[in-house]
């Protein structure tokens, strides 16, 4: 019952929250003192980035780990991991875009050699590699295992990459929202909006994930049909 309800509601709620985010972000909140209207990107970019790095990659990694663990090995885990990485690639690209859009006016360049930027880009390449690997292997078992290992390697790399480029001189925003001790540097309605946006994009992620998952299932069903077709044909090769 609850499950059904949540499935029903996921879409609508996401849409409502997104709408809220944009309404608040564009009209309710005041323009920033220094950055002016640019600051409004604050309600999109960090949330997207959060989904891209932590939420989606986290999902993919956990699913992959669960696949590799014999006890919980199942097709579902493989599919979830696959879909999560695909969605995450989308969000990473969005992060890069919103980021560069923000960077051009604030830093004066589209791109800079900065810890977070670089690590985000590198993570993007990881996602691409993961998807490439899936295309290259057609044996299900092999594909599932290999891609699971890649996902986990990526997860291990995220911190390494992060630190290695951390210690570069950085000009990206430091933690200005989730600061240790929870004393936020952003205030009032801006903060609320920020949190709404976080919630909205988080839900959006799960919504997309579920949609993508369903497509995957349908695709596999269609494959099954064409498989029976292929089997019949192969058997016919026997009789002359």
């Amino acid at each position, binding site marked *: 019952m609850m499950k059904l309800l949540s499935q029903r509601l996921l879409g609508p709620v996401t849409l409502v929250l997104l709408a809220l985010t944009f309404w608040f972000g564009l009209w309710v909140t005041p323009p920033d003192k220094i950055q002016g209207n640019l600051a409004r990107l604050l309600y999109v970019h960090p949330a997207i980035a959060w989904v891209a790095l932590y939420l989606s990659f986290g999902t993919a990694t956990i699913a992959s780990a669960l696949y590799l663990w014999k006890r919980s090995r199942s097709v579902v885990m493989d599919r979830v991991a696959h879909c999560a990485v695909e969605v995450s690639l989308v969000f990473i690209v969005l992060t890069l875009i919103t980021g560069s859009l923000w960077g051009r006016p604030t830093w004066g360049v589209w791109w800079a050699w900065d810890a977070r930027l670089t690590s985000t880009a590198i993570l993007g390449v990881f996602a691409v590699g993961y998807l490439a690997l899936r295309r*290259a292997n057609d044996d299900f078992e092999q594909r599932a295992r*290999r891609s699971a290992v890649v996902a986990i390697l990526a997860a291990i*790399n995220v911190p390494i990459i992060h*630190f*290695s480029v951390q210690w*570069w001189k950085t000009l990206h925003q430091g933690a200005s929202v989730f600061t240790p001790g929870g004393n936020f540097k952003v205030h009032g309605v801006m903060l609320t909006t920020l949190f709404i946006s976080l919630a909205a994009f988080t839900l959006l992620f799960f919504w997309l994930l579920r949609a993508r998952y369903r497509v995957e299932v349908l695709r596999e069903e269609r494959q099954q049909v064409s498989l029976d077709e292929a089997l019949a044909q192969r058997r016919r090769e026997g009789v002359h």
Partner: protein
Amino acid sequence: MIRTALLVCAKDLRIERRSRVLLWQVLPFGVMALVLSGLALGPTHAGHSSAGPGLFYLVMLLVALLMINRSQVIEGTPGTKASVATLGLDPAGVFLGKALALAVELWLTGLVLLGGSVLVLHTALVGTLSALPSVVVTLAALAAAGTLYGALSGGGQGPATLLPVLSLPAFSPLLIAGERSFSAALHGGGLWRWWLISLVALVAYLGVGILLYGVLEES
């Protein structure tokens, strides 16, 4: 595990010694790449040694890619893979063995290229020597990671077609760390934290490899 590792490592190194690929192809290639990158940067940069470490690792990365590919190729035809599979070697051992062999080759190449960069890119000799330990660790990490990614990218379509796209993002932090600690060794500065990154990476990859290499080979 160790027995298998040594067996496999010995086998790989012997094959390499036979086929002379390291001596006649990889080394000249590396030196050439080094010299040319010196040229490519033009007189303005090639002069001052600050570019040295970066170029060194860039070339090492390239060499590593070639060697990783190679260390998969010498595993031979599908036929060979099949019958070796029936020997039931301990995968963890195989991983360690191949990684070790790769590391040895990378160390040799690295030594030569370091000499090269001292001569060609005028990197300070003393600094270079004091960078050796970090170079050793970084290259070892590169070897461990490379062996894993080699196994991952092999088997599919074509020989290790996927290797670069899979491995480069993982190599980049190694490259950065290596380059940083090398420059630190040259110009002084916080050498250790970079060294640490390489070390952590090395340990991480060895761990993952020992645990998961079997999963890759299995299918």
